[in-house]
């Protein structure tokens, strides 16, 4: 068992993981996140949202130390985000995610009569 753990620990990595820089902007309708992921095609992007987590992963055509680069990053998301309406757009190596607020989280103005 120990040996197995050792071999797993020292197994040759298949890729280099990098953390993409991100801008998180609070907008009236929700939150917008822009990730810098150069060399990542739209078909190579995976986005998972659920259980209070948002995970993004993208395999790049770039290489580091002879290994392909994989961009990975995750965020905690609150119940105020409508997971079903999350949309994503990738252009020029920048992945932009729009996380709209859930209806119960949108502030309502109440006029005083």
């Amino acid at each position, binding site marked *: 068992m120990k040996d197995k753990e050792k071999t797993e620990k020292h197994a040759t990595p298949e890729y280099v993981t990098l953390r993409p820089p991100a801008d*998180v902007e609070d907008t009236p309708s929700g939150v917008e996140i822009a990730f810098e992921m*150069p060399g990542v095609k739209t078909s190579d992007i995976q986005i998972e949202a659920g259980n209070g987590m948002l995970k993004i992963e993208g395999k790049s055509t770039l*290489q580091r*130390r002879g290994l392909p680069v994989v961009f990975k990053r995750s965020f905690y998301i609150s119940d105020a985000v409508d997971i079903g309406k999350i949309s994503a757009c990738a252009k*020029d190596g920048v992945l932009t995610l729009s996380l709209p607020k859930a209806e119960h989280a949108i502030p309502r103005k109440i006029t005083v009569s």
Partner: protein
Amino acid sequence: MNLLARRENEFPVELEHTFPGVEEFFRSIFGSPDPELLRRHHPWGPVHDLKVGEKEVTLLFACPGHKAEDFDVEITGNLISVKTCCHCEDEHAGEKHNYMFKERSCMSFEESLHLPVKVIGAEAKASYEHGILQVTIPRELKKESQPRTIKVTCGK
């Protein structure tokens, strides 16, 4: 004391001026820093790869968020210069952003590199896709001399 330092230097310029030889002293103890590590701590510079093939040289610049028309690529002899202007500030002028945090830096840059082999600059091609600028330049190959057949004649 000025706390700002040049990005290329690991030590503040002021410190090196005040205590000459301090950089060399630390290098003698800890060695030179790993360029990959420095690049990770200085993510604002364009990350580039250089591949020297048998027939061509390929340069890859990772600069996401730009447009193809923003780039200026010049090749003079074995020197390649890549320049780009960022219009983000002009485009979003007047807009108010409420950033929770901002890690990306969209900025203009200019980088020049000496290529290790002779190239034909006139036949270079450049493309920008998925945030990567790729410049392909064919190598100047030496013309191989044709094999000569020499007839051996009998000497009298």
